[in-house]
């Protein structure tokens, strides 16, 4: 019984998770190291990496600050329509990435009055970097908040109350009590948020305009190379993202262990 169930489960995982990974790495390297190196060091690829990292640097800190603020407001205070607010925060997860990109086209595209006015004044959002950043922020919006709200809810407010009776002010409570208590949860949320930023495809695809060396993120570069039948190149660039994903999983594993440790110890 045990071995049968385990066999089926692991076989399913092997087919759906391992095979694509192996195929990808095989395709990335089978024409040799030089081809791989050329694809990865191609100026367009490097530009795409830079743009992707830029989007990460913009989106992650903003979503982190938002996540901290939202979790503080929601878990430390009572106010009306709290559950509704939580539902709204989760909203970007239910919106298809394509629609997420599309709403920014509707808002800032050349066809909208706002977009036309902004383009006339030299602010191009759509088919340019700001659009990519906005779309990235939208799709990764809930990650940090969503990780912190249940964690801080479970921790309650007793520690903060204790600090208050000992004379600490708001900033001292936040930095010396709350933040150290949620640090692993926060890091966890940031990791998930970063991973999604690195790999977002649908939303970014709609707003980018696919201008090579200008508005291509790494995952869009993969698509372009693939559609041009440069398979080795596409897989080589994709392998960069796979390394990112594996790093994410490892970090996640480490942080999960830390969080578990923290929970069990008190």
């Amino acid at each position, binding site marked *: 019984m045990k071995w049968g169930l385990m066999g089926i489960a692991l076989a399913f995982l092997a087919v759906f998770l391992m095979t694509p990974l192996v195929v990808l790495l095989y395709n990335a390297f089978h024409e040799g190291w030089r081809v791989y190196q050329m694809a990865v060091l191609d100026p367009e690829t490097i530009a795409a990496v830079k743009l992707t990292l830029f989007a990460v640097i913009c989106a992650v800190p903003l979503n982190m600050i938002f996540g901290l603020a939202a979790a503080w407001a929601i878990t430390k205070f009572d106010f009306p329509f709290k559950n509704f607010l939580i539902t709204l925060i989760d909203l970007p997860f239910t919106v298809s990435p394509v629609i997420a990109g599309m709403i920014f086209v509707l808002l800032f595209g050349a066809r909208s009055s706002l977009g036309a006015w902004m383009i006339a004044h030299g602010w191009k959002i759509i088919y340019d970097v700001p659009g990519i950043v906005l779309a990235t922020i939208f799709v990764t919006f809930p990650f940090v908040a969503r990780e912190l709200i249940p964690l801080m809810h479970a921790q309650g407010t007793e520690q903060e109350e204790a600090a208050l*009776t000992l004379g600490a002010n708001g900033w001292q409570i936040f930095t010396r*009590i709350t933040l150290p208590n949620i640090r692993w949860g926060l890091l966890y949320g940031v990791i998930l948020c970063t991973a999604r930023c690195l790999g977002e495809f649908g939303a970014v695809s709609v707003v980018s305009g696919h201008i090579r060396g200008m508005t291509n993120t790494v995952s869009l570069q993969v698509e372009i190379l693939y559609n041009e039948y440069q398979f080795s190149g596409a897989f080589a660039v994709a392998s960069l993202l796979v390394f990112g994903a594996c790093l994410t999983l490892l970090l996640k594993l480490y942080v999960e262990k830390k969080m578990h440790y923290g929970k069990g110890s008190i």
Partner: protein
Amino acid sequence: MSIKIRSICKSFETFDVLKDVNLEIESGELMALLGPSGSGKTSLLRMLAGLDVADSGDIYFDDQNMVDVPVRERQVGFVFQHYALFPHMTVFENIAFGLRVKPRKLRMSSEKINQKVMELLGLVQLENLASRHPWQLSGGQRQRVALARALAISPRVLLLDEPFGALDAKVRKELRQWLRQLHEELRMTTVFVTHDVEEALEVADRVAVMQNGKLEQVGTPSDVYHHPSSAFVYRFMGQVNVFASRQGLYVRPHLLEIHAEMPVGESFSAKIDQIYDLGSVVRVDLLTLEGDCVQAELTYDRYKALGLKKADLVYITIKESKSFVGDYSI
């Protein structure tokens, strides 16, 4: 520092948490707030600290009205039921916290802080555990750290929420005596919340018994125990037999006497239903002829001397009883 509580009311939606509570706590007194869960005792304690806000009423520390004073300016020492020690800080850092977060002008030098923390550690007898983290401590040790942390800010009053609630029976007894001794030493106005009668009677100078958001009785332990003002207090303070057939006569089990032969004076007969030998005392369940089920407690020697057996017919007399007018409910 004396505390005056004046007509405090608080309700949560339609439920009254506190109904017009008035209480005065003298300077240097150790007061217990005693009551079953949901009686409002913890709410009242949290209001003294400023952690809960009353709908109406006033709280005075000496002559200063504290109602609008925020928590961090009240200078109260509060020991939480589950201690709320900061898990990422060592024992030392926990105790030093209140000293370190003071505004720069009022803050002591770090040598002074070190000295003060070491003093406090000495007071709670934990000098050698200064660098431990909370999870490395036993329940009793955590409790003492929480107390030292609360004392570090030189509080005007000390408030403890179920201070022994999370401890096992043996540690609880030891800490109880220790707290009493500490109070003799410090003479700080102290209020603690408990649902344990024995604890309140043993530790406190005075006891305030609460029920359903109201103060039932305030008095010294022996006052409250021997001269209860209501049936609730009498029942809450210990085991009690209610003679429904005799218009709500209340008798404690040890105040019922069992006789093998009919004694002189008023007595009534009953049949022995069960006998429990509890070591130092023997508990006997009796069924009176009027149909009341009552319990009596007697010493082992007396039990042996009487030679009681199950289903024996015996006579009982009442050494002392209470009756409360207009209160027959059980």
